[in-house]
């Protein structure tokens, strides 16, 4: 193999045994390469001065003690958490069935929360009436309805045969109000605890009362 001085650094970095041999042969006739080669090898030789494999008798006993202590601590920790691994005693099929049941329960629960939760979100202002309050509202509503019915009886003649266009308009308005009242009562019947529906119903009753009073006023 023919080696030149320019190849020296490359061989120092990553030369093959054959290249090293060729470099040594080249160095026999090249003073500069011989010097560089000697210096390079001397570094390796000098490095051995940093090698001290003298024994430290106390080190292994110290390490052994630390290893024993760590192993004991690990065992203690493992025993404390052993109860978590009780499931391993059951067969894989049983574990799968239990896991499936848990997933099913979680899915059903999540679905229930989703549907009921979404209804609550859609009606954020619809507070629920509790039983005693609901009974009181229903009693007041019945009394209110009866009072309005009495007014309606008094205004009935004018409404059956309206003598003026205004009375005819009143009649139309009362028909619309009665229709709305019937719808709201139907909804309130399905959802009796919904305070918002009760308030809407009250507003309709008040409007009907006002309309009936206006009719009676005009009659006078």
């Amino acid at each position: 193999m023919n080696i030149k001085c320019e190849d020296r650094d490359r061989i120092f970095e990553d030369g093959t045994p054959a290249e090293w041999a060729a470099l040594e042969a080249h160095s026999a006739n090249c003073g500069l390469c011989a010097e560089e080669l000697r210096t390079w090898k001397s570094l390796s030789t000098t490095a051995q001065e940093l090698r001290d494999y003298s024994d430290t008798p106390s080190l292994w006993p110290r390490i052994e003690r630390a290893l024993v202590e760590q192993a004991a601590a690990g065992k203690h920790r493992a025993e404390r958490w052993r109860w978590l691994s009780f499931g391993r005693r059951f067969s894989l099929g049983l574990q799968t069935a239990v896991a499936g049941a848990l997933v099913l329960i979680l899915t059903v629960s999540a679905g229930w929360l989703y549907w009921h939760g979404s209804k609550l979100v859609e009606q954020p202002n619809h507070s629920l009436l509790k039983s005693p309050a609901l009974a009181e509202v229903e009693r007041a509503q019945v009394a209110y309805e009866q009072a309005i019915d009495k007014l309606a009886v008094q205004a009935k003649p004018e409404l059956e045969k309206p003598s003026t266009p205004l009375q005819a308009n009143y009649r139309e308005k009362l028909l619309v109000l009665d229709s709305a009242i019937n719808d709201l009562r139907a909804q309130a019947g399905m959802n009796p605890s919904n305070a918002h529906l009760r308030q809407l119903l009250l507003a309709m009753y008040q409007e009907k009362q006002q309309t009936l009073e206006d009719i009676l006023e005009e009659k006078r």
Partner: protein
Amino acid sequence: MGTMGLALPWKTRISSVPREREMRVEPSEDLKGRPSQTVAPPAMTAAPSEDAALAARCRAGDLAGYERLYAMHGARMKNVARNLLGNAIDAEDAVQETFLKVQRSIAGFRGQSSFVTWTYRILINTCYDARRSRVRKKEVATEDSDNSPRPEPRAPGAHPALRMALERALASLTKHQRDVFLLYEVEGFHHAEIAGMLEITETASKNTLFQAKRNLRQVLEPPRGNSAAGAR
């Protein structure tokens, strides 16, 4: 830097010593037959079956397995740690911590590298952690910012002056260059093993060693111009 200007008369003071390594690509013809002045490194790596058996014993929690590991590599591990950390006390602590880490994480050892290489990787990382911790402590104590390990006096060797000069010269290298130089030239590891320990490629290991030796030569070699002038 304290190492600048330090020069060694290579021809007269450095003697060549045979390298007791196998499969290392370096010339040795002209070194053969000369007496070794230092203790030879322990067997580089155990045979694959022995390495696997050692790993299995340690995984099983067999203390004798750890003792065997220590018997095979303890002295070298301590030497690696001392050269990385600069003193024997920190080195012994690092070796002990390495054994504890091996015991803690042996269950996660998958055999992607040899067990011994894996152990040395843990040792080197432990030394890095110790060095970082020491630098932090230094910063807190507002001492000087020199974070290179300060070598402590050792047992006298064949060339104490030479060793001290080399230790000072090593301080001028980058951390990476110093580590590769120590692992290859002092501890006798192969580039493949160093690559596994430092998590670099084999080529990077070779290149880093070359840079390290070139830099060391510049620091240690007497300026040629001055020598010539002095001779005149």
